[in-house]
């Protein structure tokens, strides 16, 4: 989960995307590992595969495309500097640990690791969402957030029927897809991806 902090740290959107892709790809098979042999059913394998495919390949691809469309390389002067946001991320992780202990985790096998990780990832996602100006970085933030939730989902694979899990993934995918379409439109309309331009509607 150190990747989160990297995501916060780096300024090059391209690399951030790569990081997120790796993260997604890693997350995919985790459920299988968690549940060892007996957990492996056709459904879960399929789900894992789909997850890897979508998060590892498809979404990054889409984002790269829109990135190329709006040729921007780096997040210039974010709302909060990089170093502070890294610190924030660390703080978030700490909070997550506190939270999960206070909630009293330690149910399933890896849960006492997974819960804080999940919460931390969610928080990091939030940090990215709220501190970055570029529309695309916000998309990434959203993705990180989703990853965090997905991590939590690890705990209850068997609770999630195949349909639902597929649905979640599909939603995620379509969501990113639509959002990137919009970002492209934004790029065309405002000739930049800077969300500071998007403040004409108020009150």
């Amino acid at each position, binding site marked *: 989960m150190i990747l989160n902090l990297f995501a916060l740290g780096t300024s090059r959107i391209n690399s951030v995307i790569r990081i997120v892709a790796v993260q997604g790809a890693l997350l995919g098979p985790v459920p299988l590992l968690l549940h060892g042999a007996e957990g492996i059913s056709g459904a879960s394998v399929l789900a894992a595969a789909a997850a890897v495919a979508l998060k590892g390949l498809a979404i990054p691809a889409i984002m790269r495309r829109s990135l190329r469309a709006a040729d921007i390389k780096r997040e210039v002067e974010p*709302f909060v500097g990089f170093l502070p946001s890294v610190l924030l991320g660390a703080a978030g992780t700490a909070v997550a640990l506190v939270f999960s202990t*206070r909630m009293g985790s330690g149910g399933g096998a890896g849960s006492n690791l997974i819960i804080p990780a999940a919460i931390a990832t969610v928080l990091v996602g*939030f940090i990215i*969402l*709220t*501190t*970055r*100006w570029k529309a695309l970085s*916000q998309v990434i933030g959203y993705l990180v957030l989703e990853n965090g939730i997905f991590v939590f989902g690890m705990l209850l694979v068997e609770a999630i029927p195949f349909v639902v899990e597929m649905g979640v993934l599909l939603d995620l995918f379509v969501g990113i897809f639509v959002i990137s379409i919009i970002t492209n439109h934004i790029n065309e309309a405002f000739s930049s991806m800077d*969300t*500071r331009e*998007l*403040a*004409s*509607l*108020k*009150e």
Partner: protein
Amino acid sequence: MSNMVMVLAAIAVSAASGLPSLLSRSRAGQVASALVLGAGALVGVAGLIPVFGPSSPISLVAEWGLPWGGFSVGLDALGGIFLLPVFIIPTLAAIYGLGYRDVRDHPEGGRGFDVFYGLFVAGMALVVVARDATLFLLAWEAMALSSWFVASAESDKAEVRRAGWVYLVATHIGTLLLFAMFSLWKASTGSFALVSAVAMAPGTAGMIFVLALAGFGLKAGLVPLHMWLPGAHANAPSNVSAVMSGVMIKLGVYGILRMTSLMPRPELWWGWTLLALGCLTGFAGIAWATGQADIKRVLAYSSVENIGIVAMGGGLALLGRSLGRPTLILLGMGGALFHVWNHGLFKSLLFMDAGLVIHETGTRRLESLGGLLKRMPVAAALFAVGAIAISALPPLNGFAGEWLIYLGFFRGVSAGTGPGLPAAAAGAAVLASIGALAVAAFVRVFGTVFLGSPRSPSPSKKGNASRRSAEWLMTAPMLLLVLACIVVGLAPGLVLPAIGAAAAEWGGLRNEGLTLVGLADFSWTLPLALALLVLASGIYGLFVLSARRGRKTARPTWDCGYAEPTPRMQYGASSFSEFLGRSLSFVAVRIRKSEPPEGAFPATGSFSSKAPDPVLDLAIRPLASLARRLMPGMRFLQKGQTQLYLAYILVATVILLALGAATS
């Protein structure tokens, strides 16, 4: 039961009375609507008469589709008192309206006017018969909204829109307060049914009383809740003002009386509060009336005053109930209810008359009127009668009503010792002062509008036939009202039993020996009136005779030998009330702007004074504008930054989690 049905039928008919003119937006449709309304009114009155007899209250409950309560209605003497004007006066006003707002002259306002007028009447009637909170609120709001529609019929004028808006806001607060009131009522009695509650926690009862006082007081126009009233009355078409002032605001009083009669023995402070409010309302209302420059605003403020008088009677009756003194209950409540009728008669008369003047001259400003008696003698005579009646001068009905209240006060004095009840009788002094001011206010209006000589060349409209008929249509209802004023004034004994029955019912004395008729002996009114008439007319006759002897040479007013007294030198309305205003400055604010003439041969000089409403113009408007300036201050919370919005979500989550952790 059958009369209940008749009354309900009447309500239905009047609700539907607008349809003809909606279907055919022609003169015929307008006339038809008025006729339908009248027919409904006749049925209603016919059904109403028996309730004043010894018959016990009638009620009727039907199932209703709403989750609570039933369609439960009832008729009793108390309701009858208020229902009678509801049926009669709007009909007269509708006939008047045929002449005043001929649909051919008012095509724009014509649309839907009669529809809402009908709904207005039906709503008012339903308010009185409703015995279930939900039904009551329904009728109440129907009344409020439709009255708003008809009152802002001329909403092209910005002034009308402003007044209408104030009225709408005021009536909405009222409704919300009633929401709270009835909710508490249900909480303490267990149902929305408006039947007398056996017992009630004093705290809750007091709360309900206060809420009723506020919610209904807004409609009635108790100071300081009257702020909507002058504007709305002044800017509504005169036939509407007549109904609003003559009938609608009384239903606010009705609400207060109904709730107090339903609740168990009132606490002492209720009566004091109502009495004090009544005194304040009456005095302030008439004091403000004396300063107004707009004939209809004068009438509107005098409505406030009259509501105050009614409230004084009610307060006296409440005191009587909590102290267990039937005489005070009967006299106070009897006086209040009697005054409700009387005010309905002469105030609608006066508003119609004012409408006649406006229709003739096209202005409401007193300063530009004058000398109309020569031009419209009938209107002048009718106005004179109305003015005498509303100033509560003998021998007309206004005096008969207040006489009861005075009697109540005097009884209060002679009854018992120690402070408390006798102290309440000080209200009599306030009432006297109000009476004197009423004389001042109405002499002022009568004098400036009808007497002297015209202050401005008013457009003399061509006297074609349609206008003749219009004037006739407008005058006929007024004649009826004047007749009623005189008859009731000369023989109050005719209506006293009905009023007595209602008062007894309110105080729960329906079947006790003591009756209002027994307490108040009106046998003196007729002889007194005759004596006055004989003496005055005799002397008048002598004058006329000796005037005949005199040489007939028309010469201007001597006026201490002024060479050329011009109309503009007359004592105008504002100058008339100037001295009075100065002595009343402790209650009536007057804004004066004057630049006195300078030097030996002054070129210019000007004086202008206007009387703003202390509550609306000096308190509420400033506060409202302040709020309007402050509210946007909080808008910085939403300046369009998505990041900020997302942060809100995070913050909300954290706070809620913290809350949850704290409360767990």
